[in-house]
């Protein structure tokens, strides 16, 4: 059975050890940072590629964001996604509601032209804004079942078995296709892009649309780095000579 699979991703900065904000405190100062796709979504891309490799079909990656988002779309295509749709913005923050509406429009337009997606993957939540809602909103708008927080996805004929990590194991859901699935890191181990994969990605198609940003109803006012947790590092020494002090600490902590 050949399938059509979409994966929606978000471009986020690689924050490293300490987050520095811009002067107006409305964004992270990214002048010295690299960018990546949000970790959960990378697993959605990998899963989409594996499904198409196994059964054949067509895969599309979508992202909303500024011109630079094309880097992450090319990364997804280097992993094996066939083509990309870029919902281009001027770089302003879009809230989850507006992002979902724009993605729904783009998915509908592609489905009208090329057929229904059997599965649309999202990350369970983005690494940066952590809104926990875009997948559920798109699913509702398209009238499809949505299962969230998945660590395992198994297509069984015309339905999909989904495993969601919960305390004390995994809950299983079986839903008919087409479906919207939001996934978590650990679903799979994403491959590294190969050099030929990167070469091919350069020539794959990126369709560009320019949605209009509605006023945010969850409106970002400012960002702040939270105060430290009051930890003040006490040195127990250096090298192997510190071992007795460490054991003493473990005794004091009541774990030895």
């Amino acid at each position: 059975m050949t399938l059509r699979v979409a994966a929606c991703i978000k471009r986020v900065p690689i924050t490293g050890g300490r987050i520095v904000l811009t002067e107006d405190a409305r964004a992270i100062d990214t002048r010295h940072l690299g960018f990546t796709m949000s970790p959960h979504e990378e697993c959605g891309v990998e899963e989409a590629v594996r499904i198409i490799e196994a059964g054949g079909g067509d895969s599309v990656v979508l992202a909303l964001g500024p011109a630079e988002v094309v880097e992450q779309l090319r990364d997804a295509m280097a992993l094996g996604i066939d083509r990309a749709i870029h919902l281009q913005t001027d770089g302003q923050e879009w809230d989850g509601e507006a992002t979902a509406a724009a993605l729904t429009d783009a998915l509908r337009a592609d489905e009208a032209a090329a057929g229904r997606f059997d599965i649309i993957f999202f990350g369970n939540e983005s690494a940066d804004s952590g809104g926990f809602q875009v997948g559920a909103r798109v699913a509702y708008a398209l009238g499809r079942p949505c299962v969230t927080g998945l660590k395992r996805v198994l297509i069984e004929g015309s339905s999909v078995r989904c495993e969601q990590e919960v305390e004390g194991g995994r809950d299983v859901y079986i839903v008919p296709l087409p479906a919207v699935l939001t996934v978590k890191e650990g679903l799979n181990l994403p491959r590294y892009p190969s050099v030929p994969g990167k070469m091919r990605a350069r020539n794959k198609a990126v369709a560009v649309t320019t949605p209009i940003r509605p006023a945010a109803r969850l409106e970002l006012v400012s960002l702040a780095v939270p105060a430290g947790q009051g930890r003040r590092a006490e040195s127990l020494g250096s090298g192997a000579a510190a071992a007795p002090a460490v054991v003493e600490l473990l005794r004091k902590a009541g774990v030895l």
Partner: protein
Amino acid sequence: MSVLVLMEPGDPSRQTLTLARKFGEPLHAVHVDAVEPFAPDALAAILQRVADELNASAVLAAGTERGNEVMARLAARSGLPFAANCVAVSPGPPATLTRLRWGGSLLEEARLHSPRPLITVAPHTVSIEAGAAPIDVEVKHLVDGLDERDLMVRVSDHVAPSNGGVSLTTARVIVSGGRGVGSKEGFAIIEELAGLLGAAVGCSRAVTSAGWRPHSDQVGQTGTKVAPEIYIACGISGATQHMAGLKGAKRILAINSDPQAPLMLNADYTVAGDLKEIVPAISAEIRKGR
């Protein structure tokens, strides 16, 4: 003005009541087990009906997996905005709130322009305050009248965890390794120390990405959030991704060759130097004392 709360067992829901009271009283509760087995669209449908009947000024839930999932679905079907993982709110309008970003590494001040704020409260960020208990809403007639479509997504089975080792979430001690461990084989000394302490083995995202350890060992924003008595971080630099998983740790001991590594600056205790010498020396010292 009444306020509706989705209740789950445990402290995060009780913490949620503290912020719910800011939107008015009395509080009304719908419990997550109103529909068994768990069916998130069904719960969202019930919350929507009850919120309308009560003319609720706001709907809140704990920022747990279940809470965020149900509230996102309620937001979608109600056509309303939704703010996840808040730590402070003021009713407005517009409601103003503080919420977590980057797994808690950043705080966002935001305005929520909505006739009925939909909010989840980040677990363990708000204290439980005394107040009138919420009134349980009778929902049996709503459960009986659920639309078949809202029961399509429903738990049908449960798979028990496969690993026999010490669980990261409940471990009292965690010995964790980062890129500095160097290789898959390098974890032998981490496992040895963990074995002596009855500890769980953890790791950073760099380690799972390299394929040295399974993702189930990963501590951090996209891994497991931990709360041990002591967390021993070996060769972990301390990226925000990792630190987001350590907020519940009582004590952090960092072992690293770079004294300026973020984790060395954010730990309670540090040992500077080569973990390949230090970790076996700690194991030997423990054995000596037995």
